[in-house]
């Protein structure tokens, strides 16, 4: 098959993602158009070859890691296709391989011009002049692709205000294993209760029975998005590359707020920090992020700063500062943000904090420093694990991505703290406090720690499911969290998801091992 090349050592980078899981594959392709995707997918479907879809491989759940078969890497499909305006809202259609960073840089520098734009798109571009837009979802790793974000319904710090990727995608083109294409537009095709009918552009109809489970009432990227009278597009967003290949996405653009400030609030005790965050999170308009860094996370940063190099540019964290709440304020004017800052300072003092122990970023340079600080935390944890891996190659970082409803924030923190102390495990915690969604990362020192950590992780999945939480709030399930999905929804629900998948992908060639254990027993044998 012409666009497919046999897999060789030079492609070894395409066997892994940021979860550090390493897979294996027989062939690889870098399609440049929907037509090429279609050709490859049809060939694989006819020859029963599993296909793993890839973007920038920045995912943390190994969804893009191939376990055999073909790797379809979409990073070369990165054109901006068209622009559209409706009721003063602007919509940008892009190919899936465009990265978030490139997309937002082009938007910020008003350099959207694309050879693919029609006269109508160019006319819309003119209407956009004088205003700056952005694509609002903001996973920490900005070099991710838009296709990857859609596949796992990514979110990030600013999702507290803007919601996950799902809320910002209004249309999709999806190529199915059969070689047919679906054009899905939000608001045009709905399920009746739990029955969904889809018709491809080629005219084939599919009747899908949606699973019966109820999704938790919290931030969630675990399994198919299912509810009564579901909008068809939502089924494909967050489907982890198991239902079809997304070849184009329409993004709803958001007007960039004129004033963006970031403030880090430092505290001596976790209790005070949580109380502060809980007090302010639902009473301040324009609060885009409510992030948290615990003592261990700050200690990791201090250590990395000492080693110099890339992290030397981090600001110095005072010894007395044991944890940090980061808030980002999006407003129309600096004056508005100044008022909010004054209010936040007051609340901090009321909670027992000291408003001189804050870092305020009021311009892009300082803000990017605080974003660098945020990004440096997981990087530091990875560096520690890489170091330890040299002695114990099997260990990995065990990063939790679970969320609970608002009223269980203090319960879940108690759960994490007591169980970690009991097991004598090293950990570092950071993440989206505003959504009760913390990345508690177990940092195993040896193999025994690694096994203890895995067991503890499974226990959390169970207890958090019982609290009405989600086992994956934003990273997607991929391969790594597939076992916990069963814990969350039960075996029956998994079976229903599997049946749903088989309706669209009868040979189960797509995203093998994502969401649920492979259903390809017969093919593998």
């Amino acid at each position: 098959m012409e666009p497919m090349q046999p897999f060789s050592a030079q492609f070894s980078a395409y066997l892994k993602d940021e979860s550090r899981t390493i897979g294996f594959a027989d062939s690889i392709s870098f399609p440049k158009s929907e037509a090429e995707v279609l050709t490859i997918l049809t060939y694989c479907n006819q020859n029963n070859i599993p296909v793993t879809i890839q973007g920038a491989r920045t995912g943390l759940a190994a969804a893009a890691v191939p376990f055999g078969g073909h790797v379809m890497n979409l990073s070369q499909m990165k054109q901006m296709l068209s622009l559209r305006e409706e009721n003063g809202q602007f919509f940008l259609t892009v190919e899936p391989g465009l990265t978030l960073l490139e997309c937002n840089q082009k938007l910020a520098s008003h350099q959207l011009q694309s050879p693919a734009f029609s006269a109508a798109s160019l006319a819309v571009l003119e209407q956009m002049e004088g205003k700056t837009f952005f694509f609002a979802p903001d996973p920490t790793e900005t070099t991710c692709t838009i296709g990857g974000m859609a596949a796992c319904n990514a979110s990030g710090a600013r999702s507290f205000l803007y919601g996950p990727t799902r809320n910002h995608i209004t249309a999709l083109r999806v190529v199915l294993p059969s070689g047919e294409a679906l054009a899905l537009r939000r608001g045009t095709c709905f399920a009746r209760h739990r029955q969904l009918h889809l018709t491809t552009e080629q005219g084939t109809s599919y009747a899908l029975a949606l699973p019966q489970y109820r999704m938790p009432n919290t931030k969630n990227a675990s399994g198919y998005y299912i509810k009564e009278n579901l909008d068809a597009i939502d089924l494909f967003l967050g489907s982890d590359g198991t239902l079809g290949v997304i070849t184009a996405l329409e993004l709803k653009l958001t007007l960039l707020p004129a004033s963006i400030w970031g403030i880090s609030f430092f505290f001596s005790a976790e209790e005070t920090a949580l109380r502060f965050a809980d007090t302010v999170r639902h009473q301040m308009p324009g609060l885009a992020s409510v992030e948290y860094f615990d003592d261990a996370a700050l200690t990791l940063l201090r250590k990395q700063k000492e080693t110099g190099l890339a992290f030397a540019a981090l600001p110095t964290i005072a010894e007395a500062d044991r944890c940090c709440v980061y808030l980002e304020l999006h407003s129309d004017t600096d004056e508005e943000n100044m008022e909010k800052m004054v209010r936040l300072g007051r609340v901090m003092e009321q909670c027992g904090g000291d408003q001189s122990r804050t870092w305020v970023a009021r311009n892009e340079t300082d803000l990017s420093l605080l974003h660098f600080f945020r990004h440096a935390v997981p990087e530091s944890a990875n560096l520690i694990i890489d170091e330890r891996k040299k002695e114990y190659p099997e260990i990995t970082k065990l990063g939790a991505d679970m969320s609970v409803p608002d009223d269980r924030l203090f319960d879940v923190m108690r759960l994490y703290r007591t169980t970690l102390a009991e097991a004598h495990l090293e950990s570092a915690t950071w993440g989206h406090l505003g959504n009760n969604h913390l990345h508690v990362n177990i940092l195993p020192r040896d193999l025994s720690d690694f096994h203890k950590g895995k067991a503890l992780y499974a226990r959390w999945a169970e207890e958090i499911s019982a609290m009405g939480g989600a086992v994956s709030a934003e990273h997607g399930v991929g391969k790594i969290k597939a076992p916990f999905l069963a814990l969350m929804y039960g075996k029956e629900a998994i079976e229903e998801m599997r049946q749903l998948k088989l309706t669209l992908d009868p040979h189960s060639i797509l995203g093998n091992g994502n969401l649920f254990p492979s259903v390809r027993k017969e093919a593998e044998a």
Partner: protein
Amino acid sequence: MISIDSALCRGCGLCVKTCAQQALFLENKKAFCKDSCTLCGICVDACPFHALSLPQKTAKEDLSAYCGIWVVAQCDQGRLLPVTLELLGKARQLADQKQVPLSAVLLSNQAETLARELIFSGADQVLLLSHSSLAAEDEELTFRLLAEEIERRKPEIVLFGATAFGRSVAPRLAARLRTGLTADCTQLEIDKEQGLLLQTRPAFGGNLMATIATPYARPQMATVRAGIFPTPKRDTSRTGTQVLLPFPTKKKPGLHVLETQIQAENSSLPSAQLLVVAGKGIGTKKNMKLVHRFAQLVGAQVGVSRPLVEAGWSDYRYQIGQTGVTVHPKILLSLGVSGAIQHLAGISGAETIIAVNTDPHAPIFQVADYKVQADCIATLESLIQRYESQK
């Protein structure tokens, strides 16, 4: 602020568009200027009707008394710096064009030997301060000597290498002489009409080039970085004169250099001019030796991509990319690097990128100025062979 002749202004608005300060605006089809004008003059060139003008300056003294070009020489451990020779080569062209003498100024404990070299590289005259105490560069002494000799001998152009030394002495001298100085010129020419020195340098972060002149003050001063101009051919048949300069007036020095530590060519990747970057495509750890060998031969430094650090083939401090080091070399040879976006962010400042990779789809090719779709180790071996046979 800018003067606008409203009789000439047609209200076309071109000047408004050029103004980076947003100081110009149109009212009733005429251009007007606000206080925020910085008199940068860009709008003056933009106006097709010559309606805008800058305030006129005049010379404060008789400029015709100034004649000749000087190059301030620098040496290190008894050898002239390459930038000094490069400057002489360029200055020779300028002096020939203007038909004026070219002098080199030298402070050294071995001035006589070096003076000959300066003449071989283009100087007509060498102004020497020779003394056994001048083993190391002395910024304050050089400054005082130049200040006195320039006032006495009145050269019209004085050029410095943009070394740490030059960048410290030249501005101080410009302030003493109340004249203009243009830093880091990439081009020097003589203006055909008035014989002025036209000094071109990058402005606005290198996105725009500016040509600068010093029409009403003398000398016209400029600094130039090493490697901008070619080294002239050494011509041992050239002759010239040597003039011994007196020590400048004694003054209590303000600075005392307590200690100078020579640092071996350090591995400061961010400032490396020539860079070789290895990626996972080099195949095995032992091929790193080849990478280092080639780098040594061409005088380049070595950086690596992240997968290579993760594999333990190199150290984190050599990692190039968003979370490693950001580099700005003149030339970067990328060997077997696929070009993850994180990596590309770290090399976007490179002037020229040559990428060698077997994978035609490697993203590194999208940013490369020169692409080689070939085995990087075979190419590297050929390169090493080529350089070794030249030795």
